[in-house]
């Protein structure tokens, strides 16, 4: 048995190359930097591959399991936003698992055809990023000595998110394989009801999640002489709500269009997304591949059409974190969509807006005002953080993040403000964004308490560095809370100037009075800030500097999980940091802190960080790249890329880490590309690592698409419409639509020269 997993740079070519296959069966792209290939079959790694090879479209996600299944499989189709609860509600909401619509039962006469029966002659799976299609090629020698050939292609349609498509064929010396059509009915403790109805042309499934929503699948299969075409259509309904669309109608649409046209529309939709988001790296094929893999999964999970669901920490690729939504979405994933597909970012914010009632209730229940968003959110916005966890050494320990990690409210506000700054969509600000910004500001105003020293403090609290719980005045939380209060005030002023009646109506509805705004200003002015005036280093929280100092790299090779190296008790007594905390703040508000402050804090905190969180390397990469430490940044970029792709991390079986994927985009574009969206201009300051000979990407900003194409000595900028642009440390200039270029010399970029206008 061939048990090697091979990456595409080493991959053999597929039997049919390119999109134009002679027999109309789709074929993967030839360019190895646009595809991920696994050859053979490795029972140990099969579940990793199922995550890698998931096909999704923001509505559903299907793991890349073998069609016929295997004992090592964990197949699943997730329906975004549909969660069920176990009868005893012991584990909180869990994602609903839909029917295994890709299931086939290939047989040659009465003989089962499976990987584990007989001998594998060839087995390859190819995920084609550009087309958004998973391909499989398989030759198997049966115990009888006969050799079968099989191939399949599947996708979650991006042009019509209700649709899923599978095409397959299989033969043995001219004799067609039979595939069967019985798709098993899904089960599970969080499913209250599952039923199917077999019609003339299709099978309809109805799934009711316990204390959750519903999902409907209609599946139609046509099979002839060893060739199979299958369409599946999906609809979902919120608890007590009506289904979004009809799967039967979607199925009829697809059948009418036919397989070839459906495939072509899907391919075009992917083409548009890549046009708006692809990041080209030359000189470093591993980085290029890692980026495309990351972007593929990010594009796959976005849904610009509805706020029905947000994006879970593992997207729609696996069961990890029970599909729950964390701050990962706003702080890591949303910026990618904001600058490549802002309609998705808009829906992500609308999702949080939809959960405001739950956020208000949560704040109230803890004795605060305003809105405290769920640390872990699912379908209705109620916090579903597990109250307890079993530590690696079998100790039941309370999980305090749900109780104390309150920066989520500021993170949501940050994302909302970033959306406003990027789109200048006043209507959205008035109808959706303002309510989030005002209610979160109100929360912080009530959350901060005046201390004996006359200053306001926030305690007990957990910052992004979750190694230290119950601390006072976490720098990230305090600074972002202050920023949130100031943006709340700015929102009030903006709206009162721009739409006086709209503002009055909103303020009345929210019961906001002048005294509230005055209090916000007071708290913002007097909220504790611990920054050493000499060293410019922010103390991560009160008395952090008094803890045992450690050098993380001397404890273990990084990254490492601090809990598993020092143990939980000792961990809390050291300065070891799990992930960027102060640096996260400096990353999120790049224009608010001078370069020397960023440098001082990077120098202090980087050696004390274990990177025991998948959120850490990417942020360090961006901060290092902005500081001009390009090679160090590249090391962190590779560490972030390795989280899901490298065999040594062993962390992908439960799904792709969406935040880590997004942090690769952030590193390339915001870090090495040096793009900063400032209040008045877009600043561009590329700083490429030595091995990268070219970096090119599009960047959506204020209804404009700016294309940046840089090497180490020149940057070329293509503006679709006029924009205020600054290069390096230069002053902003109003540039007309057209193409520009600038040279790098003497440590800075020259003024952009016009290459072509209009």
């Amino acid at each position, binding site marked *: 048995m061939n048990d090697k997993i091979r990456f595409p740079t080493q991959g053999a070519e597929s039997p049919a190359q390119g999109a134009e296959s002679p027999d109309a069966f789709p074929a993967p792209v030839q360019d190895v930097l646009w595809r991920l290939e696994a050859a053979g079959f490795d029972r140990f790694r099969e579940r990793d591959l199922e995550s890698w090879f998931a096909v999704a479209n923001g509505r559903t996600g299907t793991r890349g399991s073998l069609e016929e299944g295997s*004992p090592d499989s964990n197949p699943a189709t997730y329906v975004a936003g549909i969660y069920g609860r176990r009868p005893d509600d012991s584990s909180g909401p869990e994602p609903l698992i839909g029917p295994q619509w890709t299931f086939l039962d290939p047989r040659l006469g009465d003989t089962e055809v499976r990987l584990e029966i007989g001998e594998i002659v060839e087995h390859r799976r190819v995920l084609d990023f550009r087309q958004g299609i998973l391909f499989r090629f398989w030759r198997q020698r049966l115990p009888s000595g006969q050799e079968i050939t099989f191939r399949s292609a599947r996708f979650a349609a991006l042009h019509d998110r209700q649709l899923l498509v599978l095409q397959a064929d299989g033969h043995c010396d001219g004799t067609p394989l039979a595939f069967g059509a019985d798709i098993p009915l899904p089960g599970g403790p969080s499913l209250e009801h599952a039923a199917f109805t077999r019609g003339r042309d299709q099978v309809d499934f109805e799934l009711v999640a316990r204390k959750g929503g519903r999902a409907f699948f209609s599946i139609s299969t046509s099979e002839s002489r060893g060739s199979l075409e299958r369409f599946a259509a999906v609809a979902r309904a919120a608890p007590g709500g009506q289904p979004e669309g009809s799967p039967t109608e979607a199925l009829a649409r697809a059948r009418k269009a036919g397989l070839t046209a459906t495939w072509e529309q899907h391919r075009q939709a992917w083409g548009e997304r890549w046009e708006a988001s692809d990041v080209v790296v030359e000189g470093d094929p591993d980085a290029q591949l890692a980026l495309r893999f990351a972007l593929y999964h990010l594009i796959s999970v976005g849904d610009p059409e509805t706020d029905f669901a947000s994006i879970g920490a593992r997207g729609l690729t696996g069961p*990890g974190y*029970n599909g729950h939504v964390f701050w990962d979405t706003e702080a890591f994933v949303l910026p990618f969509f904001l600058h490549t597909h802002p309609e998705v970012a808009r829906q992500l914010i609308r999702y949080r807006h939809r959960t405001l009632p739950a956020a208000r209730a949560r704040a109230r229940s803890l004795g605060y005002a305003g809105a405290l968003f769920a640390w872990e959110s699912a379908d209705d916005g109620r916090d579903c953080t597990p109250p307890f966890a079993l530590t690696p050494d079998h100790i039941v320990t309370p999980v305090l993040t749900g109780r104390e990690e309150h920066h989520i409210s500021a993170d949501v506000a940050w994302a909302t403000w970033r959306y406003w700054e990027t789109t200048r969509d006043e209507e959205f600000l008035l109808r959706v964004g303002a309510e989030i910004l005002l209610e979160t500001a109100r929360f912080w105003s009530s959350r901060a308490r005046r201390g004996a020293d006359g200053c306001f403090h926030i305690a007990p609290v957990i910052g992004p560095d979750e190694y230290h719980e119950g601390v006072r005045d976490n720098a990230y939380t305090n600074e972002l809370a202050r920023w949130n209060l100031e943006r709340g005030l700015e929102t009030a002023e903006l709206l009162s100037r721009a739409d006086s009646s709209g503002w009055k109506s909103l303020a009345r509805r929210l019961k906001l009075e002048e005294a509230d705004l005055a209090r916000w200003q007071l708290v913002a002015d007097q909220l504790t800030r611990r920054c050493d005036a000499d060293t410019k280093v922010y103390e991560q929280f009160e008395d952090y500097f008094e803890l045992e100092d450690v050098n993380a790299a001397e404890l273990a090779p990084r990254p490492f999980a601090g*809990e*598993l190296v020092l143990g939980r008790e000792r961990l809390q007594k050291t300065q070891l940091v799990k992930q960027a905390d102060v640096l996260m703040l400096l990353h999120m508000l790049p224009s608010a802190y001078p370069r020397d402050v960023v440098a001082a804090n990077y120098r202090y905190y980087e050696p004390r960080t274990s990177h025991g969180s998948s959120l850490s390397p990417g942020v360090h990469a961006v901060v290092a790249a902005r500081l001009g430490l390009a090679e160090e940044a590249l090391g962190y970029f590779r560490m972030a890329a390795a989280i899901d792709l490298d065999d040594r991390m*062993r962390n992908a079986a*439960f799904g792709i880490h969406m935040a880590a994927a997004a942090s690769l985009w952030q590193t390339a574009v915001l870090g090495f590309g040096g793009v900063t969206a400032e209040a008045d201009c877009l600043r561009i300051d590329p700083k490429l690592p030595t091995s990268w000979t070219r970096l090119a990407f599009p960047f959506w900003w204020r209804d404009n698409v700016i294309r940046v194409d840089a090497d180490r000595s020149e940057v070329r900028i293509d503006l679709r419409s006029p924009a205020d642009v600054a290069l390096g440390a230069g002053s902003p200039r109003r540039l007309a639509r057209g193409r520009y270029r600038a040279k790098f010399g003497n440590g800075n970029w020259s003024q952009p020269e016009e290459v072509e206008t209009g």
Partner: protein
Amino acid sequence: MIRITVVPGRLAGRVASLAGGWEVAAAPITAGDLGAALCASAQGDIVLFVASEARLPDRLANILVPHDGSPAPALALEAADQLAAGGRAEVVVLHVPGAEMPAEPGSLPAPRMVDHVAYDIPDWREEFGRRFFQRSPGLLRRLDVRVGAVPESILDAARALPADLIVLGWRGVVDQGRAVTLRTVCDSAPCPVLLVAWPGAEPRAPDVAAGATALYP
């Protein structure tokens, strides 16, 4: 049938009863002679070693199997499973996260990143079980994790259980400076140690092609 080599003398009968259906052969190894035991083990015999201070169990209730998270200790786990199945013992698989990561493809040591202990650790346990426990479903097995130096953690776990037997897989390389963990555990083990060397002594480089390996700094 697994052939087991034991130090001769007073232990042979006891081990024979512990081992159930195993073929037990006394080898010309002096009790407590670790060097000779290691040599025999390195040659492919399964060797029972008993340190001078070790307690001799009357029956097997707890069998401790240190596991580095690579597929390599499969034979040790299999041996432990056979013993456990005979005596209805519990197999406690002990993983001590170390600085060195096993290089074999398919390895699953404790995660180097734990975003959320409530999810990542159970997920890792589940995946660990699916990869390494799959061959003998139904047996009583537990995966324990200890933080600290590897040999001391194994000895601590053996004392705390208390373990009636430690089944220790190793690479079968007895060169100077190698098998440090094994030597330390054997010297101070509070119970007998069953030594199981696995074939293919040196870890292989990952089969994931260089492109993927290079992703990591």
